[in-house]
């Protein structure tokens, strides 16, 4: 049971990749990239977790009690906020592709030229 977070992270990665490969809409593809990113969050969180330890906020627990790893949480935190702006950039690209080609289907994109 203690390996369940790793399995969930691998499952999210594979299902997100499946969504990217079989996508018929560029916006759907961008969201599946977001699912792949969330798989890395679950993995990092599982690595930082210590069983039975509280959160690393020492305002109401005594400083020095064993707590969960804060370094990994710091990585995930900035990553989440950066994810939304990178997703905005991907969506802006998808909108421009639609403007040039008239379609959002990745399978039809190379066929419409000129």
């Amino acid at each position: 049971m203690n390996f369940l977070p790793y399995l969930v992270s691998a499952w999210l990665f594979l299902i997100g990749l499946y969504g990217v490969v079989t996508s018929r809409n560029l916006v759907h593809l961008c969201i599946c990239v977001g699912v792949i990113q969330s798989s890395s969050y679950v993995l990092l969180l599982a690595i930082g977790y210590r069983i039975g330890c509280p959160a690393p906020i020492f305002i109401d627990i005594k400083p020095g009690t064993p707590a969960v790893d804060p370094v990994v949480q710091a990585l995930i935190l900035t990553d989440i906020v950066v994810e939304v702006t990178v997703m905005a950039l991907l969506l802006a690209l998808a909108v421009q592709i639609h403007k040039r080609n008239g379609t959002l289907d990745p399978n039809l994109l190379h066929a419409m030229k000129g």
Partner: protein
Amino acid sequence: MTPLQIFILLFVAAGGTGVVLTRDPASQAIVVSFYGFLLSILFFVFQAPDVALSQIVVGAVALPLMILLALARVKKQQREHDKSR
């Protein structure tokens, strides 16, 4: 690993599958919002309140908003494209 954590992990896996299998982007925006909420509960249960705060604001509010705005622009461009044909 407490039963709550196991339950939430399975829910997150199911939520991710649901996000990918929803093909229409407009309904996918709502499913993504719910998935972001599930992820923030997961982060909270794993003793990471900062990360849960970040995920709630970003995943349930800002991300579906960007998706819906992109879809609205695409719809408008599609209408102009059909008119000019």
